[in-house]
């Protein structure tokens, strides 16, 4: 079972993302509301996947992404974004994000993104 850490400063968004990931068979091993917490959580839990809100206070999603990349080269990082933030998305891709999910979070989209980043076998919808 693939493990995930969900990072978002908005608690409702976290709940939404967690819900969809769980439904797709991922195990949520942690959540964080800013970049600093995210790094700590990843250090502790060593997840397969991190979803990262592109815009957060304290440490921006992209800064956090860069740090995660440095420390955990194998970690899959998926950004959560809205399409109006194109420039940031571009920056994130260039900084090594594995993929991105455009809000609103829809199961179908998340599924596609997970298949492309973690592979079909990571998904277990029977869960």
């Amino acid at each position: 079972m693939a493990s995930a850490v969900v990072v978002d400063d908005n608690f409702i968004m976290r709940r939404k993302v967690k819900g969809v990931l769980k439904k797709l068979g991922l195990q949520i091993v942690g959540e964080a509301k800013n970049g600093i917490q995210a790094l700590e959580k990843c250090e502790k839990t060593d997840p397969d996947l991190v979803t990262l809100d592109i815009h957060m206070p304290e440490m921006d999603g992209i800064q956090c992404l860069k740090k995660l990349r440095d420390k955990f080269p194998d970690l899959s990082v998926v950004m959560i974004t809205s399409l109006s933030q194109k420039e940031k998305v571009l920056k994130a891709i260039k900084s090594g994000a594995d993929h991105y999910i455009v809000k609103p979070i829809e199961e179908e989209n998340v599924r596609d993104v997970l298949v492309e980043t973690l592979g079909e076998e990571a998904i277990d919808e029977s869960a």
Partner: protein
Amino acid sequence: MSDSSGELFRFEEKVLEKAQKIVENEKYQGNPLYKKYKSLMRMYKKLLFQSQKILKISDNNQEKLRKTQQNLALLLNNVKQGFLTFGEDFKISPEYSQECKNIFGQDIAGRDIYELLFKKSDSDAEKDILNSIFQDDQSRIKLYLPLLPQEIELNQKLLKIKYKYIEQEHKIMCIITDITEKRELENELEKERKNLKMTVTVISNQGIVKKYVNDYRHFFNHIIYEWFKEYGNQTILENLYRKIHTYKGVFSQWGMRNSSESLHKAEDKINDFQEENPSPETREIKKFISTIDFNGFIDQDIEIIEQILGENFLDREKSVSVKKDDIVELKERIKDYFPEGEREQMVTKIDKLIKKSLRDLIDIYEEYTFELAERVGKKLEQFKIESDGVLVDENKFHDLNKSLIHIFRNSIYHGIEKPEGRLKKGKPEGGSVKCKIGEEKGNIYITIRDDGQGINVDKIKKLAIDKNIYSENEIEDLSRNEILRLIFFDQFSTEEEVNQTAGRGVGLASVKREVEKLGGNISVETKLDQGTEITIIIPQEKRVAQKDEINMNMLMEKLEKKFVQYIGDNLELEPDQKNIQLNQIEQLELSDFNVITNIRFKNLYDIIFSVDKKAAQILVENFIDKHLDLNKMDQKKAIIRESLKEIMNIIIGQFFKSLEEEEGCFEKAPMAIAVEGGLLDYKNNEIIKHKFSINQGLVNLNLIARN
């Protein structure tokens, strides 16, 4: 092809022919090499045959390939989509579909994709994205593609673009569709849909729409100019802004989007004006207001509605203003423009026209109540209407429903506490307003309750004493209920201070009036810190004064016309019309001189003509053609009374003549009285009051229904 292969193998075939002749020649048959030669010849023959076959196959395939290519080209040239590809150098490859030429109006082979497609867009983001795409790993290229614009405008065309990464060629393919016409059509359809929706909303709310449109016109044509007499310059702009905002909200709720958009722009204009003129003069404000075409704002929507429902739909005098045919046609159009599901909803809406759900009528207050709560710093958690589908005649309930605003307003202003106050009392931070509608034993009941602070009965008592409504002794005899009921009384509720301290007030008297007009009853129950519940019970069967109201309006209009005509003919003056109102009264205040008469036209009515001294002087001087000395007025009272009676006789006589369908007649001859501070008692009779002024003299024309 066999020709060509024959041609191609002519030499070989000649060799074979020669060899065959040798084999057939008897003179070689004894030769020791004959057998070998013959076998060699056979093998040669086989080989040649195979070669010819292979050539044929190859030819066939080539033809197939040519055909495929031809088909592909045909496809590319005829498909209504532009296909083009570009690679790392951003140059467009020469193989693109013919449609690209139509779209771009030029040969695009070798052109730079950025220059061609994205240069005109608003940001450099596209350049950034394009530059990044080919620098990244091949497997990640598709991550970038959704970031490229999906729709662009180019040469007045709207283009939809899809991107695909072609791995084998390491190129990106753009699939471009010209959606200009499609979009225009969609917009047209959308517009038509919106218009139909608006029309349906408007007919299902026709009473109130009429009312608001008339109010709107009246406001911007008249009332606004009255304001200059009453308010300071700054207040006028603020009030105007609020007024516009209200109308904007109301119109947009009915889908009258042209009107609400225009009003929205007007709001902006006022803001700009206020910024540019921090302390404007009256003249400047008037000039500014005159530059805004308020009447024009709503014309467009009304024109659309009238196109569908026929002209004069919003004509005030007609109570049922939509022709059946128009309704049938409207339904047909709805079927054309709306998908199933939505369609049925709208048709049901139209079908319910005759009777309307009371819930829907009250529903309009939800937004208002939430907005008000926010405005005064309160938190409303819930606005709930529970109804078991009570249907009512909208016209009948219009006035009552309109007055309910006072109850909701009171709940927010005085009932629901501020969030911190609520938390201190251990209540949830946000308050609730619940409305229950039901039918029982031939009655319709509406209860509206809030979970606010309740009404302080002691404070009401104190106020009743302070205001000399009751003495201290008297009030002790009243029951709690009787005291609570005081909040519905005029003397009680119009005072500002009641509003501030007792926590109830303004406007509840008008709710009571409307309830009683419908023959109903209103009551209140309250618990300190738990909330207040107001219950309204309306009998369903009660014959409502509705018809009479129309009748009265018509009578008053004619009466007023004859009065104005009399003044114009005899005094060569145009009376200044102050205001007109329809009300219910318990008492009528008389003026210095009054002529009272009782007429019959379908029903019985009192016509009371009240004039002050100044007006009496003007009218009578003219009538008897003599100068009256105001100081010696007392001696002339009799003359004045008689003269006024005669004037009234003339006016009413003309008035009777103007009644077409049925004849009107005096029930009692006019009677004139001169009083000071006189009152006439009535029992909630309907009255239309019309105020005029003639050269600073005041004239009241009253038409009162005798029940």
